[in-house]
């Protein structure tokens, strides 16, 4: 019995804790038992209060541990239980005869020598609040007068208890508010949303002394509650999306007010997964409302245990939720501000990058260096590897520069290298970007980006690591001049619209820099050509000037020395002077022609001319300049064309002159004229001379190009250049044919320009 009693006594503290009996109430209760003992002159008194269907021991007076053996009794059980059940006083005159036959009570009474017992109910109107019990060691100690006295006292005691309880409740409420205030301070210091939600969940477990909490946020887009932090549930909770009306959380979201259930297993709206996978019994939920808008829901559950949440718990959770939502809103704003800052920072970095690019690109006007710069500057900010493509004058697309990053895979680097070896297909991304002027963004998992490069398909399979590419056209002065291709291998980078716009900005600057370098190169080449022209002209003029100077000085010298000039000197000297003069005059004319062609000032003076007569005349005249060559002219009787006769004479003279010069061993030179179609005349000049070496054939029409540069006979290298310009001004074309074993034939195709004239103007002329 003692062991039982000791065990029970040990629970007192815990009980007081749970009953939330504060010092004020405890003092009141102790006073009641003490006062009652003195009032009735008894040996001990005890007090139990009703909680649910139980009577809980709350105070005792008398020998240590003597009064009220048990901490709690059910209503109706033992003596006190009977008083509570009947709401009537009960006197036990002799403990041995007590009606409940309660062995625990009897053992206790025997130990302490108690013989008489009196209990009265504590009534608040009709409700039984508790039971006040008196003990005496004398037999038949209590009579009707004691009952009346104790009932009167109990009435006063009930009021005192009531007051003390009110005080305690108020005190408890303050304590809770204080607790909430403390945790709210914690919330305010956390600005990271995920960490904040985790903290909220943990604080609720501490505040309510439970283990299962879930914090949901409302997702407007999907109109569901999304679990964001929880305790006491598995990871599976994270996969749930709770619709309004579903489970406690959904019901809270629907009603926008707190919800409490005592047993989740019997709730009709229970969420099936939660029901299946958790042991939730009592559940309360509170909405997270910010300015009347649903932001989320907090639920707290008691699992495994059959115990309801108290009204205080609900109030506590509601109060906490009101504070939590402000912290959540604050964290969200903070997060949004962080994003805005990050975006601003990214924009600043882009601007800085572009500024750096502009500065770097402006640092050089060298064309090749600029192309290299453009490729290099793109790595690594824009791409892991970059290729610059240019549209050449002949319309081909060529890879002009590449750059790879330190981490670029070797096979990608090699593929980029290979793509520099030949033209790029116009059907590729690059070709299409250049043609359309529009950029292309490729996710390489869908389209093999390396189609830009005409390399073997086998090679392409190995470059599977390239995951994305951007191809942007390079446009300057309204025209596509090339394209920029940016490659991203591996998982590291996926290109999005922002990358594309940055790439376009970059390409714009790059295109301008390349265009500038190109113009600069052209200007430099023009200056170089002009210098070369002057140098060649000066050099070429030296020979005839030498003869003019020499022959005239020779004549003067003879005249001075001998008073007359010997005929053997005079004749060749005069012939030399004439030749030198003609040569100077021809060189000057050529220079003027080139100057006019460059400035676009060479204008044809076209008239209807008989080409046949022109060709025959020139052939005859040229024959007089050589006796080692035979000039043979084959022409129709008459071939009328609208041409500039002087300019065409220049062309034909130049071609025949070349034929003579490059047939040093003499031989036949055949000049032919024919109609290849009703409107096209063809003029050919064929020699059997030394020909033109194959490696030089490409360039013979270039200005100053001398097919035989070690040769005085080649002159300034202007003849064919001028001839071609004149033919093209006529709308015709000129091209050479090279015979096996030497000999060259030049073909000149000229539109006659006359086909429609006879029918239109035939009648009157």
């Amino acid at each position, binding site marked *: 019995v003692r062991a039982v009693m000791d065990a029970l006594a040990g629970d007192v503290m815990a009980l007081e804790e749970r009953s939330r009996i504060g010092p004020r109430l405890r003092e009141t209760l102790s006073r009641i038992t003490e006062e009652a003992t003195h009032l009735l002159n008894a040996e001990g008194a005890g007090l139990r209060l009703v909680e649910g269907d139980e009577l809980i021991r709350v105070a005792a007076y008398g020998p240590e541990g003597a009064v009220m053996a048990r901490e709690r009794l059910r209503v109706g059980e033992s003596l006190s239980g009977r008083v509570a059940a009947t709401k009537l006083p009960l006197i036990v005159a002799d403990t041995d005869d007590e009606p409940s036959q309660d062995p625990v009570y009897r053992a206790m009474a025997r130990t302490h020598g108690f013989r008489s017992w009196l209990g009265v109910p504590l009534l608040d109107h009709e409700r039984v609040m508790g039971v006040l019990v008196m003990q005496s060691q004398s037999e038949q100690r209590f009579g009707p007068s004691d009952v009346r006295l104790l009932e009167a006292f109990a009435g006063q005691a009930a009021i005192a208890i009531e007051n003390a309880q009110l005080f305690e409740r108020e005190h408890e409420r303050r304590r809770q508010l204080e607790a909430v205030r403390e945790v709210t301070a914690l919330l305010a210091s956390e600005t990271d949303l995920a960490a904040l939600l985790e903290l909220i969940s943990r604080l609720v477990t501490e505040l309510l002394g439970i283990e299962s909490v879930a914090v949901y946020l409302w997702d407007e887009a999907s109109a569901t509650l999304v679990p964001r932090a929880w305790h006491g549930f598995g990871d599976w909770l994270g996969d749930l999306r709770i619709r309004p009306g579903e489970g406690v959380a959904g019901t809270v979201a629907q009603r926008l007010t707190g919800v409490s259930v005592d047993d989740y297993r019997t709730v009709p709206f229970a969420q099936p997964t939660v029901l299946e996978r958790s042991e939730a019994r009592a559940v309360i939920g509170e909405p997270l409302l910010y300015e009347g808008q649903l932001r989320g829901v907090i639920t707290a559950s008691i699992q495994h245990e059959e115990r309801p949440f108290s009204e205080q718990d609900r109030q506590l959770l509601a109060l906490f939720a009101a504070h939590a939502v402000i912290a959540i809103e604050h964290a969200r704003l903070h997060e949004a501000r962080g994003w805005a800052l990050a975006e601003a920072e990214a924009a600043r970095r882009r601007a800085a990058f572009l500024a750096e690019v502009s500065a770097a690109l402006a640092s050089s006007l060298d064309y090749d260096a600029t192309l290299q710069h453009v490729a290099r500057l793109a790595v690594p900010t824009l791409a892991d590897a970059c290729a610059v493509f240019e549209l050449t004058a002949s319309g081909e697309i060529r890879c002009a520069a590449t750059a790879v990053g330190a981490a670029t895979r070797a096979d990608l680097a090699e593929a980029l290298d290979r793509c520099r070896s030949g033209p790029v297909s116009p059907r590729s991304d690059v070709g299409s970007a250049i043609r359309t002027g529009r950029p292309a963004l490729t996710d390489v998992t869908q389209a093999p980006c390396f189609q830009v490069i005409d390399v073997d398909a086998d090679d392409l399979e190995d470059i599977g690591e390239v995951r994305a590419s951007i191809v942007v056209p390079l446009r300057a002065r309204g025209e596509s001049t090339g394209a920029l291709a940016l490659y991203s291998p591996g998982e590291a980078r996926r290109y999005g619209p922002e990358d594309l716009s940055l790439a376009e900005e970059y390409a714009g600057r790059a295109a301008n820099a390349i265009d500038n370098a190109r113009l600069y190169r052209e200007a430099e080449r023009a200056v170089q050509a002009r210098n070369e022209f002057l140098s060649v002209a000066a*050099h070429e003029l*030296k*020979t*005839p*000037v*030498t*003869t003019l*100077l*020499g*022959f005239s*000085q*020779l004549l003067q*010298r*003879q005249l001075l020395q001998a008073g007359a000039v*010997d005929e053997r*000197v005079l004749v*060749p*000297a005069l012939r*030399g002077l004439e*030749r*030198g003069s003609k*040569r100077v005059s021809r060189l000057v004319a050529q220079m003027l022609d080139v100057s006019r062609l460059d400035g676009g000032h060479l204008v044809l003076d076209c008239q209807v001319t008989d080409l046949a007569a022109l060709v025959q005349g020139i052939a005859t005249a040229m024959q007089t300049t050589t006796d080692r060559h035979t000039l043979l002219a084959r022409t129709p009787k008459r071939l009328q064309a609208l041409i500039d006769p002087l300019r065409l004479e220049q062309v034909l003279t130049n071609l025949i002159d070349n034929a003579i010069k490059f047939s*040093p061993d003499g031989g036949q030179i055949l000049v032919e004229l024919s109609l290849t179609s009703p409107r096209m005349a063809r003029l050919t000049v064929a020699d059997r001379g030394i020909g033109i070496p194959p490696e030089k054939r490409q360039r013979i029409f270039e200005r100053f190009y001398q097919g*035989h540069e*070690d*040769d*005085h*006979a080649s002159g300034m290298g202007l003849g064919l250049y001028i001839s071609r310009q004149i033919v093209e001004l006529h709308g015709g074309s000129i091209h050479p044919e090279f015979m096996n074993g030497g000999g060259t034939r030049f073909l000149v195709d000229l539109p006659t320009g006359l086909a429609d004239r006879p029918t239109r103007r035939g009648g009157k002329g």
Partner: protein
Amino acid sequence: VTRATRILVVEDDESIRELIDLVLSSAGYEVVTAENGAFALQVIDGARPDLILLDMRMTVMDGWEFARRYRASPEPHAPIVVVTAARDAAERAAEIHANGFLGKPFGVDELLALVGNHTRRV
């Protein structure tokens, strides 16, 4: 009887060739002309010139090649004077270790003085 001083003129421009021939002949020199290096090598044994006036840029065989081959022959060699329109006439002359050079355009007096200088010992 001493023979006249003989000059070999190797020059591919016909007018210049004629001019030099006429000027030197009028001044009493004996002139042999060749229109390129190859032709000059053919005639040089018979001509035995006292001085060679050599143009550098010629078809068939240029001045460099001519000088190389001429110097490779065992006979005592005549001095060579380079006649060129090149801006760096002195450099050209140095390239083939010539005895002198004459830049185009040149005057008659200049030509005669140069030839006189290089043939006085004869």
